């Protein structure tokens, strides 16, 4: 096969340039600034600043609140990722089997995708309202005095539920198209080999879905870590108080609400490193076990 290539080096460079510039301007440049200001404590107006070395980092290590936020972020991400993937997979498998009214059913399941995270958060506020919220009443039926914004666990539960609800449609769409791309012949062959539907699912369907699932796993972890910001912000109603929050939200609070630029920069540098490690881990360890057809 003839190897395709460019005769001139400048053409590919010119074609790549817009993308590279976007990355440089919107990622490398601010990231560099964040790295630099994480070693300083500076007056927000820009008049005074002191070089403090690693103090912004060391003060985070000893801070109980930072540890608590980090702990919550892990639990929150695991719960949101797990439930939004599991529920979406279940719905997709069931939707795949529906023949009559399939389109309506699928459209209804995808609908929530169109809702922006802050809007989802505001709907959460209505559903979990302390006195009139239907979900508040639902939890109270089980004897849980559910109070959004008062009780830490109640607020955390609300954040997980809204975030999962918002993410299910995305996962559903991908899982459904993944299921539908499994060849009919393969399905029919397994029907002969295995009579148990559950067995067929785990032995044949799920491995064939693995590339989709892996892609969604990455997307969902990123979603839980970063994109749920709007939901958390809305459910907090502007006052962090004793509410749970994620690491990204704390970067925002300290930087944009508290005007502590150095401390906030140090936190975002830590987050950048975490995301880097997570990505390496995912591609080195998890992806090796996945077979693309």
């Amino acid at each position, binding site marked *: 096969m003839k190897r395709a290539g460019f005769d001139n080096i400048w053409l590919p460079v010119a074609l790549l340039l817009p993308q590279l510039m976007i990355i440089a301007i919107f990622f490398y440049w601010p990231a560099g600034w964040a790295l630099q200001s994480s070693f300083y404590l500076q007056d927000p*107006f820009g008049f005074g600043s002191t070089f403090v070395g690693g103090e912004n980092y060391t003060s985070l290590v000893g801070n109980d609140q930072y540890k608590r936020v980090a702990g919550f972020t892990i639990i929150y991400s695991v719960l949101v990722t797990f439930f939004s993937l599991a529920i979406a997979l279940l719905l997709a498998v069931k939707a795949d089997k529906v023949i009559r009214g399939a389109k309506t059913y699928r459209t209804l399941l995808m609908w929530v995708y169109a809702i922006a995270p802050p809007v989802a958060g505001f709907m959460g506020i209505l559903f979990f309202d302390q006195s009139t919220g239907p979900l508040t009443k639902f939890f109270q039926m089980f004897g849980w005095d559910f109070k959004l914004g008062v009780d830490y666990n109640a607020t955390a539960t609300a954040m997980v539920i809204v975030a999962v609800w918002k993410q299910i449609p995305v996962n559903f769409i991908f899982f459904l198209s993944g299921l539908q791309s499994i060849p009919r012949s393969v399905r029919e062959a397994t029907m002969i080999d295995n009579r148990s539907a559950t067995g067929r699912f785990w032995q044949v369907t799920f491995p064939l879905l693995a590339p989709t699932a892996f892609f969604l796993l990455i997307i969902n972890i990123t979603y839980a870590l970063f994109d749920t910001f709007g939901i958390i912000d809305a459910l907090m109603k502007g006052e*962090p108080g*004793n509410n749970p929050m994620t690491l990204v939200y704390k970067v925002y*609070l300290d930087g944009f609400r*508290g005007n502590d630029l150095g401390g906030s920069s140090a936190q975002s540098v830590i987050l950048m490193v975490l995301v880097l490690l997570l990505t390496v881990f995912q591609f080195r360890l998890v992806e090796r076990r996945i077979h693309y057809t």
Partner: protein
Amino acid sequence: MTNLTFCATAAAVAFSATAAFAETEITWWHAMGGQLGETVNKLAEDFNASQDEYKITPVYKGSYEETLTTGIAAFRAGEQPNVMQVFDAGAATVIGAKGATIPVQDLLANNGVDFDINDYIAGVRYFYADSDGKMIGMPFNSSTPILYYNVDALEAAGVTPPKTWEEFQATTAPALKDAGYIALSQSHLPWIFTENFMSRHNLPFATNNNGYDGTDTQILVNNDAIKAHFTAVSEWKDDGLFEWYGTGWGDNAKPFEEGKVAMWLGSSGSFGGLLQKDLPFEFSATELPYWEAVTAEPTQTFIGGAALFAMSGQSDEENKATAEFFRFLTAPETQYFWHQETGYVPITEAAYEVAKKDGHYDRYPAAEVGVNQLQDKAGDNTKGYRMGFYVQIRDIMNREYGRILTGETDVETAFKTIEEEANELLARFAKTQG
């Protein structure tokens, strides 16, 4: 013909451009939403109509925190407004950044506007001043925490509004509970039960003269009086005498407006809003209660709300316009209008006199409570406080208080945590000024 029209239009454009140029335009970034925002717009319209040399344009920038952050970002980009509204907790940040603002006292003096700090109401005078007593920010919407009560509820329970927390605990609250009410809620634990707990009892809130005299300040929040107060508050909560509905302001005001809670600690600035809501019961207000065990003679409280700062880096003409706007704003009539519409206190004694003479307090006795409280006996610790990163310190207080009230921590540990984290932030703030 077409050519002629074009020339005429061009001439007209040029003419109107010069006409507009003669009018100095200034901008004012503020955080007053809703009804308050409309009153702010009215103030600006009135100022613009009162003369034809200057024109002010108010721009709403979101919450207090958002306005401060946007203002800082704009300053760093050289795009700052002429006037910026900064709230109480942001005062240390903006006053600490020497060169970011023109002290209002200098601005007025340089532009021939008479200024005497003693014209201002006692509790308002030094809150936005520097350690030498020079006024840096012009107090704008000033309020102080007062106790609102449901007159019908108190009558049903056969009690009068409490003067002291001892009276509340022994008499008022149990009677209200028997009458079927939750006795009390409050809307801002750091402001009402911490900062103003200190001023009401004349207790020092921070070293360095409450933080005015330097940046190597330590917070003095971990003291027995306030710990006893929070121990009492959480006992009241356990006994069903007090309820906490989260950190949000409105969440705690709502049960009072619905008539479930009989008394609510809010801002004197909430008065206008409550009046407009047309509550299904009669309400009134009284001064913030105090502990007799701590002090026999309660002192005046701090103001909350926000001040207007004249940002530096503007032309002399624009600074002159800002000074003229401040002259208009502090005029007794303007202050009285603002006081009537919103419930924020009039900031000058002259304005207070106008309101009194007009019979405003005969019509609405509750409107005078805040003004009176700001004119109670002064003490060494009542002029204000100045602490850096105070927005975060308040957030730490809110977090720990919430944890106390939900049983996640105890009073002793919570105050130790607040003290440690606040002092660490104060030390960090000192370095930002270096």
